[in-house]
């Protein structure tokens, strides 16, 4: 049994090495400036006891490929935040959507003996084992957003509130429909990739929030977080109901396609709520010219916070505003509702899709 496991381990290493090699060639070709290590410091973030320069912390960073506005913002924010500190050295590995390649990347970070690893796993379950291995090797793991199977695999988890996102969207839609006095409304939902736990949690929160108003989710379809799938699914969904009162779309990136489909079908009778909080969606909300009236945030600034936490943990500092001497083991971000009234406050944090 042990031999077998060893063999698998070696094979994964080999695969990983191949993956890394291919990745390296690709980066060399495209010459993309992303994921550059930053050792050139600028000014530290805020001026409190924690911001003073301490022992240098090497932070390994691994995230899925930035093929989506949100994941793109995650990588960007992490790199930018690390640059703010002179005592942070960021080791960002090649982003990948392949679980095996990500496991291999984490293995190399373990071998390099970085101090802290910040990881947004492609799949929380499948990367639990390697995260545990890192913890066992004495490397603190910051689990970003997609949660591992067991708390043994991370020192601190920080992420968005998927259930809360659904609740925020459901509450906004419920309030609006209630104040308009609509009874028996048709509420549509365009979800993201359905097999992901985060999508299921968002939908559950949405359903539960609507239930408080006595409302139900009507037509519901899952898209793929891409513009094209948003357009395709919505174009068909709009045909299933000649009247819709409200729609929640989980993701502002696919929302570009959703809005396109709504315009192409010449539908204006309902209002729509977005999700995640892209800059583009916020601009639409601000202009007030489309059906998009609000969006509920799932802020990619969590990557900046994760780097800050990694630094604090690496330097064994606590969070100054709290009484605790250590960083908490879990931090859940709040999903805010952005409407025309408060959009200006959120626009700087909106990510470009």
């Amino acid at each position: 049994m042990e031999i077998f496991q060893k063999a698998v381990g070696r094979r994964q290493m080999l695969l990983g090495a191949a993956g890394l090699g291919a990745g390296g060639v690709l980066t060399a070709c495209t010459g993309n400036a992303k994921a550059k290590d930053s050792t050139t410091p600028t000014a530290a973030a805020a001026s409190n006891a924690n911001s003073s320069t301490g022992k240098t912390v090497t932070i390994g960073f691994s995230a899925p490929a930035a093929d989506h506005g949100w994941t793109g913002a995650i990588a960007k924010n992490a790199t930018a935040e690390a640059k703010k500190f002179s005592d942070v050295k960021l080791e960002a590995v090649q982003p990948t959507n392949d679980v095996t390649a990500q496991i291999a990347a984490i293995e190399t970070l373990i071998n390099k003996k970085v101090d802290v690893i910040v990881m947004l796993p492609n799949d929380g379950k499948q990367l639990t084992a390697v995260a545990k291995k890192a913890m066992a090797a004495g490397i603190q793991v910051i689990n970003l957003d997609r949660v591992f199977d067991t708390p043994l695999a991370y020192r601190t988890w920080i992420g968005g509130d998927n259930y809360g996102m659904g609740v925020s969207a459901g509450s906004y839609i419920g309030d609006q429909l209630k104040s308009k006095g609509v009874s028996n409304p048709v509420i549509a939902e365009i979800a993201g990739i359905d097999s992901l736990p985060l999508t299921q949690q968002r939908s559950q929160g949405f359903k539960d929030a609507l239930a408080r108003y006595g409302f139900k989710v009507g037509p519901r379809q899952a898209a793929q977080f891409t513009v094209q799938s948003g357009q395709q699914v919505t174009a068909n969904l709009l045909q299933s109901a000649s009247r819709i009162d409200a729609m929640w779309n989980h993701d502002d990136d696919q929302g570009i396609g959703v809005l396109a489909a709504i315009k192409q079908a010449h539908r204006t009778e309902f209002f729509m709520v977005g999700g995640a909080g892209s800059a583009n969606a916020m601009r639409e909300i601000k202009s007030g010219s489309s059906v998009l009236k609000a969006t509920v945030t799932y802020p990619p600034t969590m990557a900046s916070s994760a780097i800050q936490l990694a630094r604090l943990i690496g330097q064994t500092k606590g969070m100054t505003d709290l009484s605790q001497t250590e960083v908490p083991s879990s931090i859940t971000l709040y999903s805010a509702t952005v409407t025309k009234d408060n959009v200006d406050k959120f626009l700087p944090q909106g990510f470009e899709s």
Partner: protein
Amino acid sequence: MSEPPPNAVSIEKPPNALATEKPPVAEQARVEAAAERASVHRRTGVLARISEFRNVGLLGVLVVLGIIGGITAGTFWTRSNILTILQQASVVGVLSVGMTFVIIGGGIDLSVGKAMALASVWCTTISTQSYGPVVMVLCALAVGMAVGLVNGVLIAYGRVVPFIATLAMLASAQGLAEWISNKQSQLVTQGAINDLATTEPLGIPLLVWMFAVVAVLGWILLNRTTFGRRTFAVGGNIEAARLAGINVRRHTALLYVLSGLCVGIAAIMITSLTTTGSSTHGDLYELDAIAAVIIGGTALTGGRGTVVGSVVGVVIFTTISNIFILNNLQTETQNIAKGVIIVIAVLLQRRGRESPV
């Protein structure tokens, strides 16, 4: 439209080994005669009727889907829903027309989906958009055809197997699209491009018109021109085609350029439909197009196929998606249904080919 009779050609070559050395004169005469027989056979023989029957069978599938849709979803048989299905079918539809030519010609083009993404990205960069909608359209067409030309030259003159050449193109087109767009969705600011998807001449969406025009032109090119006849010849028996005086290499290369042209047109359509250019466009569209071409009765081995079958194939797949969504069913089950239909269609195809001869 027929496989050569087994006794006709003794030279067994893989479809893409473009032989150069001349065979002896007697051999040449024999092969020419065989090619002649084969083409006569194609026009008049039993197989022609079989292929018609297959299209009828496909239409039968569509009718069954129509009945199921009508029963299960109240809004299925509305004008706007039918037009939605056709509009949704239009992008893959245009790709499948080009794919039909490539597959009949004995090749395959795995790069269409990502080449389309690349063209959509290239034509929506800030600098391209600054030149206005006409340049954007020309840019998309040029990128599509350039990709096709590279494929064609690699395959016809570089003797790379089509599967590998276009697979490599899929990967590089994806990479280039990501590099240019920096993996972001590029919003179209030129209203004229977005309007393509919202204007409806004579009450029918412009994209559906474009699909129809491409399909009709494709049909004419395949069935009423020398180019079409040569395509069947090259795909049916490359050796015979060469001996009959066809410039096989140039023709093969042109088939990929044609597919590239369709890619360019499809790129304009998807850009307008989604109001963006993005490297995530066209994911697995190559498989959708190939599947549609195959269930449409085109043989993967080349030499046989119809544009009409491919078009109906695409509409069948789009209709399945539509019925599932109208009934509020989730997407996973759609893929199972798609798989089952592909298998059934291929089984039917094999029966059709074996029984008459």
